């Protein structure tokens, strides 16, 4: 039985580790400025955790085989522990765990502690059951007022957001169902939700943030490669949670300028 346990534990351990190393199912290719640092922190964590995982599981398998009753004639070793050993491995664990965290925290700080830069592309992202809407402030650079009582989801666009036509700032706001941004420039997203909590998740951007009703949450990321990226909702929001996806299109600056100009022209 000891040998069987060893084999099964080792097999499971090695098989699972294989798929992590082979990255058979893995994060999609990252296309944002934060990718390098985040992916590196993943790698560091995987290496450390992986070593601990292999060591612990293989030790377990080994011990249950080696010390099976019948392996030797000696009685079991009578010992209540070893305080020195306890102190050593406790200290090592503290250093490892806390160290791992501290190594990753500057990345968190860089992503979340500072506000968006001036000149970032500003997009207001609004989640509602079960669609994402994106609003650009237009030439005046100001987002117009929205009122919950004006919301009409069936109207789409401005109507769905409840844009107040009486506010002058809202006249030039561009509302779209697809989020289009220029490559290489920081994007500031202002996350809002109308009804329940949603979450804006773009795996390739290494970006996620909950959209909470009653709050307007400012976050930023910088796309570095053009392409079309899926936005998935990552907070249970009701029946249509699984189909509340959107598209993030990252295009060249000139293409973006043309696209936004065309939309703004429609608002005149």
């Amino acid at each position, binding site marked *: 039985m000891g040998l069987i346990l060893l084999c099964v534990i080792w097999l499971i351990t090695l098989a699972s580790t294989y798929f992590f190393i082979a990255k058979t199912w893995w994060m999609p290719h990252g296309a944002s400025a934060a990718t390098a640092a985040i992916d590196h922190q993943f790698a560091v964590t995987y290496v450390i955790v992986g070593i601990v995982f292999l060591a612990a599981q293989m030790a377990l398998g080994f011990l249950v085989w080696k010390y099976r009753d019948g392996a030797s004639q000696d009685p079991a070793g009578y010992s209540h522990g070893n305080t020195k050993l306890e102190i050593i491995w406790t200290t090592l664990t503290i250093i490892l765990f806390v160290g791992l965290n501290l190594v990753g925290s500057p990345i968190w700080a860089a992503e979340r502690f500072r506000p968006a830069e001036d000149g970032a592309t500003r997009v207001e992202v609004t989640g509602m059951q079960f669609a994402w809407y994106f609003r650009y402030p237009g030439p005046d650079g100001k987002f117009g007022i929205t009122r919950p009582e004006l919301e009409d989801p069936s109207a789409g666009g401005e109507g769905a957001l409840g844009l107040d036509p009486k506010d002058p700032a809202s006249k030039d706001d561009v509302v779209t169902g697809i989020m289009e941004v220029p490559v290489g420039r920081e994007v500031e997203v202002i996350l809002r939700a109308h009804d329940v909590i949603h979450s804006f998740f773009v795996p390739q951007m290494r970006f996620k943030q909950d959209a909470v*009703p009653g709050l307007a949450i400012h976050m930023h990321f910088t796309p570095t490669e053009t392409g079309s990226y899926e936005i998935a909702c990552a907070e249970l929001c009701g029946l249509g949670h699984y189909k509340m996806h959107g598209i993030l299109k990252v295009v060249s600056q000139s293409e973006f300028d043309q696209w936004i100009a065309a939309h703004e022209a429609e608002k005149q």
Partner: protein
Amino acid sequence: MVANESHAHAAPQGFIRKYVFSLDHKVIGIQYYFLALTAVFVGMFLSLLMRIHLVWPGVSLPLLGEIKPETYLSLLTMHGTIMVFFVLTTAPQGGFGNYFLPIQIGAPDMAFPVLNMLSFWTTFVAYLCMLAAFFVTGGAPLHGWTGYAPLSALQSAGPGEGLGADLWIISIAIFCIASLMGALNFITTTLDMRAKGMTMMRMPLTCWSWFITAILGLLAFGVLLSAGILLLMDRNMGTSFFLPLGTINGQLTGHKGGSPLLWQHLFWFFGHPEVYIAILPGMGVASQLLSTFARKPIFGYKAMVYAMLSIGLLGFMVWGHHMFMSGMSPYTAFAFSVMTMAIGVPSAIKTFNWLGTLWGARIRFQSPMLFAIGFVSLFVSGGLSGPFLAQPVLDIQLHDTYFVPAHFHLIMGVAAIFGIFGATYYWFPKMFGRMMNEGLARWHFWFSFIGTYAIFMPMHYLGMAGHPRRYSSLGEVAYLKPLMPLQKFITYAAIVTMAGQLIFLWNFFSSLRNGKKAVDNPWEATTLEWTTATPPPHDNFGGHTPVVHNGPYEYSVPGAPRDFVMQNDPATVPAH
């Protein structure tokens, strides 16, 4: 009521007083266990339906027909709720704790037997209330076991969010009260009713785990109750604790000014200690079993106690790690993440000590030991995904993906369950006077051990690939489509593993009737429950209150006549 009963009450007569409204902690423990046993099969069945719907969406099942998307979310909600509350917070503590805490400390019963009886029946009422949610108009709620507002606070947010959600909250509120009653009993009993010589530091680690778990419950369930009350008020009385100004389906909700994050803070302040409530008894049982079947004292008893105490204490300081993406301040997130890494340390210490217990041992591979070894392996696997989730910068990618269910299922949904199985195989002889079938037990172990790894290890890969949680279908988001083969594999593994659980069920009930008669101490163990008759008499020790001389894990003591020294054996143990 509290003071009128005598602890050493005579054995009751009559079926109702003996088996229904019994004051005997042993009967109450068995009642809790059977409640959890039905709940776990209900919960497992719900997850089976979920797995089938995910990979074969259109399939029509006998009797149930096709599973609709909204049903999937209700299944998910009720699966989580029933498993967390009525299995993991019930079987280890209410079941085994109730049965064995008094015996292991040498007491004739719990401190407050009437309260004990009430705590079981209150739990039962809570269970009925929870199940009732399935049968009311709109069905069971779909807001997940975490019940985030506003989804859980608005009656029109989805099907099941009407009466079903109210019943869900009421059931949980009743459960809170039942748990608090139980916690009261556990703490008072441990502090006040230990037999002579049973100092705190001679208690088996199971008793420590039940004691600390009760303290966690005492502090946490009041907060859950408060959150539930506020949620009921928001849903039914027009208050706005959690509801901001907003709309639902284009209609103004009529609420304003509340904070959805407030719900999350209150819920997780309870929710995080709750997961330690779910795992600590399993850790206690693992220590007990490893020591018994390795024929060695537990490595570092004191460190094990301090580790459990640290886990309990730190457990109250980490709740924000469920909220890194919630809109909470990133500075607060950083603070929580440091505390969360810290709580990994005592868990690591316990793992080292379990391995240390096996070093130099003479391991007997009877079924309880198999599950204890399985517990260690699964605890390591589940625990090691923690350092990923504990780092907010990595949590950006992993939050609300399948990586999270991988983590908590391996620890709660498997390791803690292995603790329950191990405890069952270990204590079944003492409780029912018969042995369970070892052959069937081994089949059950292998099905469960390999099967659960096959189910939950792949979920890490799904999470890394960005597969969000709680999706009732993979058909919409394009990048999920290539992940379907892995989901299918998980479903196959789940079906096989669940089938394997029927082996346990068969073994349990057939052994009750036909199992080999058990001797008083079939495992040659040292703790007090093995000194008394099998099953124990009404007052646990037949009039002979034990006097304790030794620590709980005196195995293979050099110079002793046998390779175990019982706790009440007056022969002196070498000082250590």
